[in-house]
């Protein structure tokens, strides 16, 4: 078996396709590294400035607890991932921040309280440059590596049968499965070598620059990404072997494989997503507007009933109006957000029929970009919002002179707040969490590989020479 694997490897090392694959992969990975080196420092700098500005704006309001409670924590920013070069994951279409809005209505002394808003990313509206895919690892692995894997295996059985060497080899006392496994391992090694080389060059470029720094955690993630890439390569090698042993001529095998590749890799992800997103329709903008108005009207009416009564009752009613209205509006917004997220997640789970989409999802999870990461960020922001509200209530409780009526200026503590006591928003990425979201995809990919390998084995055992 090892002998066959070695022979296959030597055969491939001398071939034209090995040279071309190496050149192509190296070129792509170098481009990726150079572009990342240009972009990453700027985006990190932008994030840091934005965070500092937001914090300063927040700390400027410490004189009045009411201001802090009414205007909220301001803008919260998504931390850029250090592994952005692995998978861009549609990040330009996901907004990089959530914010607390507070300009909704004003009624005498009462002002609307802050609510968390999730703006849509619209930066692409000003972009009139042609639309292209970004060259990231996900592209190199998903598209190029899979094509190369097919080009290395399409003739491995059919070609030998055509030239008659297969009969020669099987005439020896080698078990058939050993031949197949040997061929598989040989092809795997010959595809992995140029890929590993390209990855090394890519990382070498990063390590020479001081602008981009990779942490231990990032190296761990890179290791997992590399293993995922190898697993994905195995899948296409197995597919190549399967088709190659089923058909008589290598030309036919090639045509079948290429067309399968085009369908699986290029079309399935986008077409399936388009189909699946039509299954549900989240709350539309107009519906949202109508329901928002209903909520406000309901609370305003309740407030008006008490208005004009004794002073303390009016204060109490005002406090209720402001806080409950804000809470209910936020629940409504979150309901819409959940519906939208559910729609996208349904579409994403259906695209998993294509292994390329599975790998794309895996790379996004481990690189800390893309949709799952965005959801993590939103959850972090929502958790912070709760913490912030709790902080305001606790501070107010701590002041014995306060009436403890949230939402009205007179009902709240008037002491200044210590700036450092305001909770800090921390957008964290955790590997274990990412691993959990990725476990399903990882299993699915393994399943694909096992099924295809079993198929290739069966096909090869039954093959007529």
């Amino acid at each position, binding site marked *: 078996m090892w002998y066959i694997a070695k022979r296959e490897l030597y055969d491939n090392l001398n071939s034209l396709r090995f040279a071309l694959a190496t050149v192509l992969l190296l070129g792509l990975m170098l481009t990726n590294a150079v572009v990342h080196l240009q972009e990453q420092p700027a985006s990190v700098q932008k994030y840091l400035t934005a965070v500092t500005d937001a914090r300063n704006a927040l700390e400027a309001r410490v004189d009045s607890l009411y201001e802090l409670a009414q205007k909220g924590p301001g803008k919260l920013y998504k931390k850029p991932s250090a592994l952005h070069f692995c998978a861009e994951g549609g990040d330009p279409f996901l907004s990089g921040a959530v914010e607390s809005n507070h300009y909704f209505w004003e009624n005498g002394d009462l002002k609307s309280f802050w609510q968390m808003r999730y703006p849509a*990313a619209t930066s692409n509206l000003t972009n*009139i440059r042609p639309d292209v895919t970004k060259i990231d690892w996900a592209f190199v692995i998903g598209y190029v590596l899979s094509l190369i894997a097919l080009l290395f295996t399409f003739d491995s059985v059919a070609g030998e049968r055509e030239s008659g060497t297969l009969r020669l080899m099987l005439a020896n006392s080698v078990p058939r499965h050993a031949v197949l496994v040997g061929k598989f391992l040989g092809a795997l090694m010959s595809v992995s070598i140029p890929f590993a080389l390209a990855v090394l060059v890519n990382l070498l470029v990063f390590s020479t620059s001081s602008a981009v720094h990779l942490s231990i955690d990032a190296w761990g993630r890179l290791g997992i990404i590399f293993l995922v890439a190898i697993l994905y390569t195995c899948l296409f090698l197995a597919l190549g072997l399967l088709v190659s042993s089923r058909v008589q001529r290598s030309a036919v095998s090639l045509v079948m494989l290429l067309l399968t590749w085009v369908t699986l890799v290029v*079309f399935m992800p986008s077409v399936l997503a388009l189909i699946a997103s039509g299954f549900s329709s989240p709350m539309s903008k107009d519906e949202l507007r109508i329901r928002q108005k209903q909520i406000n009207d309901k609370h305003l009416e309740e407030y008006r009933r008490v208005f004009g009564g004794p002073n303390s009752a009016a204060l109490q009613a005002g406090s209720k109006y402001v806080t409950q209205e804000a809470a209910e509006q936020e629940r409504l917004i979150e309901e819409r957000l959940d519906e939208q997220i559910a*729609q996208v997640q349904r579409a994403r789970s259906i695209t998993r029929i294509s292994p390329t989409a599975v790998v794309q999802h895996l790379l996004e999870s481990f690189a800390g970009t893309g949709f799952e990461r965005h959801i993590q960020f939103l959850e972090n922001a929502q958790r912070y919002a709760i913490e912030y509200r709790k902080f305001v209530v606790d501070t107010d409780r701590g002041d014995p002179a306060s009436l403890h009526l949230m939402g009205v200026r007179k009902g709240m503590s008037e002491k200044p707040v210590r700036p450092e006591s305001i909770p800090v928003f921390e957008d964290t990425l955790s590997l274990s969490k990412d691993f959990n979201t990725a476990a399903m995809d990882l299993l699915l990919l393994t399943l694909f590989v096992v099924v295809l390998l079993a198929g290739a084995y069966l096909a090869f055992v039954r093959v007529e020479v």
Partner: protein
Amino acid sequence: MFKTLIGREFLDNLMTFRFAAAVFITLLLVVAATAVLIKDYERRLESYNTSIETHRQRLRKWQTYSPGMGRLNVDRPPNPLSLFNVGLDKRLGNKIPVSHSFVPSLWDAEMDSSDNSFLNIFSSIDIVFIFEVVLSLLALIFAYDALAGERERGTLRLVLTHPVRRGHILLAKYISAMLCLLVPLLMSLLLAVMLLTTSTSVSLSTDDFLCIGGIVLSSLAYLSVFYLIGLLISALTRRTGTALMLSMFAWGFLVLVYPNMILATTPPQDASAARGASAFNQIKQIYEEFDRERRNFLANDPVPGDDPAFDMDSPGRWTTGDGFMENQLTLLYYYWNVLSYDEFYDRHLSQVPHVQNYYGFLGPRIVNTADRVWLIRKQALDEIFVRPAFVDRVLLKLSPVGVYDAATQACAGTDLKGIQDFFDTVRQYRQEVIAYLYDKKAFGSRLWFAGDEEQVDWNTLPQFSFQGSDIGTKAKRALPDVFLLLTINLILFVIIFLIFIKSEV
């Protein structure tokens, strides 16, 4: 003899597995994609219709001109030909404000869609994209063994023992293979058009069919380019294996790698930031001058009170506000103001003619300043946004994929110029609206801000309509690229001919 050659080659190609596979896969992908895209288009159309209705209703709520001018919007309809090549149609904003206080451009449009904005993370596809990928691959699969295979098998030598010209052999191979490749192309396009015409929501005009004809023509030229690339590789190599690998990597490079790589290596330049800042300052200065004039008018006014409301309040509904709107990124800077009363207290009635006088002075000046600023802004926007995008498109055209994409986008009217045509029409519409306002003497009228005596009849407002760029313009934009494709064809053919003539059999 020539006919026999063509016949033989044609039958040879027709009876192969690859032909059957080619027809099957193209039909499958195109039909599936068309069905999905039609649904998508219907959704967009529905969203467009809702937007129009919402905007109309929102305008009707106001009985005076002033708030109406802040709420007049034009919606960009989805282009039915975007099914063929989506271009920028889906990506750029589709809600354009029309106001007398600034000139709208492509960069001021908002995205008004009932769709979930997260869905943009999925890449969109169109029929031309399918052709870009599949047809080029098929063309190479048909071509890689055309010469190298015959040479390997020795049949080439056999054929050449007959008194046949080498050019004829080459031509016969080219014609027969192209005929074979035409079958999946035309069949799938026919099916796509049939699906389109049976759908009730998509209505295609004669011009649209001519445009589809243009797309077919460019697809043909594109297909031929890739067939010739395959033939060239086949003529250069001795063995089919080598020819195959070279063609596959050439395909991967031209279709997958080059278009994505070239734009990654040319990031937007920072030099444009300085240009933008200088233009923005210039615009601000013009508005400072305008503001000074406005304040002078108010200072020399005998009646007390300050604009925009002149300290008037109202028992009924009223709204007021003014200020400067700015967006440094898109160089947008303008002065807006709004004032509207449903009724007045009697004590304010004497002030009304004075307010009328002020807005009669202000309105035309706002219009003029906006027009002056637009000249500066247009130039700066062209330099900052349009020129880099143009350079990118030229770079993309170094690969046949880019040329094909540009040609079909121009045919479909979804390219940058096609979209700009729409915005030109919007600007013309703004002129019409302003002419209408002058015609009605709206600026100095009581109706500008007071709805207590009479109300604006919004039905007499000019209607916006956009028919798409006319077929001549589209043809003018697409033809250079189609010619470029044809020239590449010709050059490739000549090179192959020269190589084949001189090659040893």
